[in-house]
């Protein structure tokens, strides 16, 4: 099948041509990402206010999270963005095998990220750092020396925000898995061609967005105390 035939086949009834259809899809996706920014924005706003109000408690709570795993996860996620970009590139060139391969690689990297995240959650659970009735924050002398005004109640707010923000981020990744699986199936069936691959591009934008959210979350949640 030539490209032009595919293009006619996938043109939806209410668009004039493929150009209009593709432009519309990408405009819609960017706008959706704006709503996502506002969605996370409310949380970032809450975080900012409490971090200013209760800086010492936030820094102390943050120092109990293992930076090593956060750093590894950041690297993993950046790699997954690379493989996603490569998938879009392969789709544009019409290389179906490479497209499927890169999509699978992206899912695997995303899985590694969530695995590590799960391990971190488990550690916090073990340390009784999950907000709720079992929450317990012990102020080690070393911490007390470093940060003067630590209030264990305020550290709970930090962990509330930590779990909600990273949890919401992880939820977005799970949605991303669904989208990637759909793309893998569609591309194995040969639905995409250099003339029509805007779904790959759109999921790519989404995946990069989720990646960027983490790029913000990592320093905000893991590195508060590091500038001392």
């Amino acid at each position, binding site marked *: 099948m030539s490209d032009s035939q595919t293009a006619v086949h996938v043109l939806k*009834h*209410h668009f*004039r041509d493929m150009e*209009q259809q593709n*432009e*519309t899809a990408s*405009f*819609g996706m960017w*706008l*959706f990402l*704006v*709503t*996502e920014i*506002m*969605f*996370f*924005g*409310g*949380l970032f*706003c*809450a975080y900012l*206010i*409490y971090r200013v*109000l*209760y800086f010492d408690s936030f820094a102390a709570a943050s120092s109990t999270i293992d930076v090593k795993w956060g750093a590894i996860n950041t690297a993993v996620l950046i790699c997954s963005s690379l493989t996603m970009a490569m998938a879009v590139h392969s789709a544009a060139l019409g290389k179906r095998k490479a497209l499927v391969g890169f999509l699978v690689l992206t899912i695997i990297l995303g899985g590694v990220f969530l695995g590590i995240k799960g391990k971190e959650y488990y550690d916090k659970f073990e340390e009784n750092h999950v*907000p*709720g*009735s079992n929450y317990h924050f012990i102020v080690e002398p070393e911490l007390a020396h470093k940060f003067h005004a630590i*209030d264990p*109640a*305020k550290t*709970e*707010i930090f962990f*509330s*925000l930590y779990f*909600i923000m990273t949890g919401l981020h992880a939820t977005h990744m799970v949605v991303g898995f669904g989208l990637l699986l759909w793309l893998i199936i569609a591309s194995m069936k040969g639905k995409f061609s250099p003339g029509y691959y805007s779904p790959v591009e759109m999921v790519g934008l989404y995946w990069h967005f989720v990646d960027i959210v983490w790029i913000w979350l990592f320093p905000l949640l893991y590195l508060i105390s590091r500038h001392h």
Partner: protein
Amino acid sequence: MATAVQPVEKTNYLNADYGIKSWLLTTDHKRIALLYLASVTFFFFIGGFFAMLIRLELLTPAGDLMQADTYNKVFTMHGVIMVFFFLIPSIPAVLGNFLVPIMVGAKDLAFPKINLASWYLYMIGGGLTLYGLINGGLDTGWTFYTPFSTTYSNTNVSIVAIGVFINGFSSIFTGLNFIVTIHRMRAPGLTWSRLPLFLWAHYATAVIMVLGTPVIAITLLLVAAERLLHLGIFDAKLGGDPLLFQHLFWFYSHPAVYIMILPAMGVISELVTCFSRKRVFGYNFVALASIGIAVIGFLVWAHHMFVAGISVYAAMVFSFLSYLVAIPSAIKVFNWTATLYKGSIRFDTPMLYVFGFIGLFTIGGMTGLFLAALGLDVHVTDTYFVVAHFHYIMVGGAIMGYLGGLHFWWPKITGRMYPESWAKLSALLVFVGFNLTFFPQFVVGFLGMPRRYHAYPPEYQILNILSTAGASVLAIGYIFPMIYFAWSLRYGKKAPANPWNAAGLEWTIPSPPSTFNFDETPVVTWEAYNYDEIEETQEAEVVG
């Protein structure tokens, strides 16, 4: 044979298919608009039922019809349903859904499936909310203020919050669809300066929906999480800040008022030019005023918090910004009035709603200035003065616009005319009933009657009786259109393509339109509201 000469009814979007699936799985924006019409009407009458209970309780000073707890639930349900499930979706999701693609000369919205998904999300959110309201109710007021909602209320806060959360995404999808459609789907020749003002208003509305709704979504998610998991984000006992909730809540919920009023302003702009037979006065100003309201509307939220304990300097800034929003609003009112000047005015039903809207919106807007004033606001905060003010905007403004628009486009939507004299009568009833209901509330509020109490001192009774009497008239004014609209579906006169001789792409296609609106994509070579040209061609036809 005799049967052979019978004219075959032309295929349109209504008779193209009749099965239930063809409705529930439709991606046609016109059918989705009708799904929305049925569902928002349903919620309107549920919300109206609770309003009736409120007015009945307030007929007498003593709390005799219901207990305080029940009354709290009743006004909460009235607010939640009317705000989130009627006012916000009403004009955009019904009239906007139907008209935006046709007005831009497209076959459908940019994302038809997302449009259908928005209706399903609306129904799921509405279903959850109704379940929460019936099964135990909610008593926080529609504002969900913390820490009452997160810590102390024993009612269904989480379920309703999640219902409203889900409903928010329906709003986001609608807004997203409108913005993308207006940007990318316009017919050749339809430049931004030729867009009908209805589209400018919906564009501005959509911007608010897209930027504001995610914030209320995350806020309600935090409320539900705090309630279920006992987090301390808004709970002062755990170090949280209840004011943060109010900031986040009003960051959306004040602009949400503009989600309600801006589309109504768009409707009024269409109607006022058509029934004055004149191009709208100052097109550019009216168009940009919509954008201005949307932008400034995002910067005024803390005027809801003047007595909540925010800093006096912040309050002064927000007070000043709240005054600013009066400028674009006034521009619109002046321009509509100037459009009437020297126009050939016709008093058809939609025009009656225009007059109602302009008068009531002006009163609502002016009393808004009272509330933006720091000192006066302290006196009338949480009184019936505030209740009267926002009902003048939401009911006197938004619902007047909605009803006016519904009458104006009813022939296009259904292909039938409604009975004019009944419609005029009910427009009159709505206007009289509305004023009788809410004007006394300004007075009683200024005298000091607080809102949200089921009992009050006896000296306020006469004004409350007037208000309840007005509410009964208003109810009849709302039930009439229900009846004659339904009646017109079967017995109404068949509507021609352009019963009002109006300008606009939607009047160039048959009533009701075919599934894909236009057989050929139209090419627009004229300015919006070219009524002088329409009059000329008409005269030429008469002479010819």
